[in-house]
């Protein structure tokens, strides 16, 4: 049974697209047939981060408007056998997305035997974000450890509870997961950043992972290669753990404690 997962946050710039890219790549690397859809119509980014921007011919809006078939619009990922990308349109606006159209696209993807359908939501709580979350079975709530991001995540959780199909049909509610990104244990220690416990205390949903703040993310974006591919880095390891937890495995939480650099490390510099 296919699962539709929305990656959302309310606030912009917290790492939704980065997380969507690595999360869907991670699922595909584990052998699951996965598609990631960019709902940020008009401001598409996902294709850049996935490194397929030059291969975009048709997009989500074309499919919604039946100007292209789904097969024409789906882009096969260059690294992963099982991963497909459905890009957003750069030239249209979000109102071009209709609820019926999105539903039809999702139904067709399910028919094509995709196991996971990852919806990369735009920022905000407007039409585009609503379209991304309406049909979700599960939600990854991407939150930075600072008050405004937490407040916006709280708001989007309320919207999921009110506006999603699952909520409106009175069925089982959307399963929520908290993904904390850009976490810096050092700054938490210094009291400059909320701890993950603080964030959880406010949002009260299960934590699926913590992604440490890292320069690697920027490198990855610039190269058009999802951060999870950079084996050996903290970020890649953290996203791999998120995928494992999502698939039901128990993995210990990492990157939460700040270790003061030891004497040698201070002399020779951190890696």
């Amino acid at each position, binding site marked *: 049974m296919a699962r539709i997962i929305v990656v959302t946050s309310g606030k912009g710039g917290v790492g939704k697209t980065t997380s969507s890219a690595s999360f869907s790549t991670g699922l595909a690397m584990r052998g699951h047939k996965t598609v990631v859809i960019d709902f940020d119509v008009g401001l598409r980014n996902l294709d850049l981060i996935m490194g397929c921007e030059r291969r975009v011919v048709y997009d989500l809006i074309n499919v919604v408007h039946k100007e292209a078939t789904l097969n024409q619009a789906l882009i096969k990922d260059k690294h992963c056998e099982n991963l497909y990308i459905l890009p957003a349109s750069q030239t249209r606006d979000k*109102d*071009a*997305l*209709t*609820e019926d159209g999105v539903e039809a696209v999702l139904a067709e993807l399910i028919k094509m035997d995709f196991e996971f359908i990852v919806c990369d939501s735009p920022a905000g709580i407007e039409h585009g974000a609503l379209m991304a979350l309406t049909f979700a079975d599960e939600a990854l709530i991407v939150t930075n450890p600072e008050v405004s991001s937490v*407040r*916006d995540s*709280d*708001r989007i*959780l*309320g*919207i999921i*509870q*009110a506006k999603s199909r699952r909520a409106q049909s009175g069925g089982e509610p959307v399963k929520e997961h908290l993904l904390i990104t850009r976490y810096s244990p050092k700054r938490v220690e210094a009291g400059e950043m909320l701890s993950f416990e603080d964030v959880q205390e*406010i*949002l*009260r949903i299960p934590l699926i992972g913590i992604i440490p703040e890292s320069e690697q993310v920027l490198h990855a974006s610039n190269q058009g290669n999802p951060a999870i591919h950079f084996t050996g880095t903290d970020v890649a390891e953290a996203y791999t753990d998120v995928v494992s937890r999502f698939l039901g495995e128990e993995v210990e939480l990492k990157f939460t404690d700040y270790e003061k650099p030891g004497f040698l490390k201070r002399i020779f510099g951190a890696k």
Partner: protein
Amino acid sequence: MPKSKLQKPIEIKISTVVAVSAIMYTSDLVALDAAMHEMTGGVSDFFEGDLAVIDVGDLAPGCERIDWAATIALLKKYRLNPVAVRNAKPDMVEEIQQHGLQLDSGKREEAPVPAPKPAPAPAPAPAPAPTPAAPAFSGTMIIDTPVRAGQRIYARGGDLIVMAVVNNGAEIIADGNIHVYNTLNGRALAGASGDASARIFAMSMSPELVSIAGVYRTFEDGFPTENARKPVQIRLKGESLDIQSVNSAK
């Protein structure tokens, strides 16, 4: 894009209308006019066409004879827009309706008379005893999930009990009391339709705003530290809100 919603010719939804209460102590038009003039300071758009509910429950004895046409005209002159009458005596009803006003029965008139007496001091907050364990519809609304930023919950005509957190940016409103068996960080407005005996209880609070019967208080400099992270009750004493640790209540 046309959504199915837009194609419906009409939709009926619950909505809350804000109206002011015009509580009349006299029916003497001259006295009323003078008082209104003084209150508004002669500013013609003081009320900006606010809806008004005329409350005649506290009329002084001997003033029960009301010239409705003139009273309505008087309020309209000060840009109040009377829509209903509250606490009307049965013999006034016909005349009120003739003047196009509604009767506001106000559920609290039926309930509070027996209710506040049997449950006066809810001493230990965790015990949910103070809410009358009515077998049928008790008018109490119970919320089990977190109330999140941007959400607003209104318990019309009764108490509101929230078992989960009320986060910053959320708003909980009740015509009766508000109980939060968790942390209250948003806005809480009890006695929303004027019940001054309503109270707010929370296991711990750091609210943005609390209000009882329209008397409100914000906490720009933070919640009083002596009551922070403790079970607290808030009630209206005179014109100010009294914040008390539940444990200190007798």
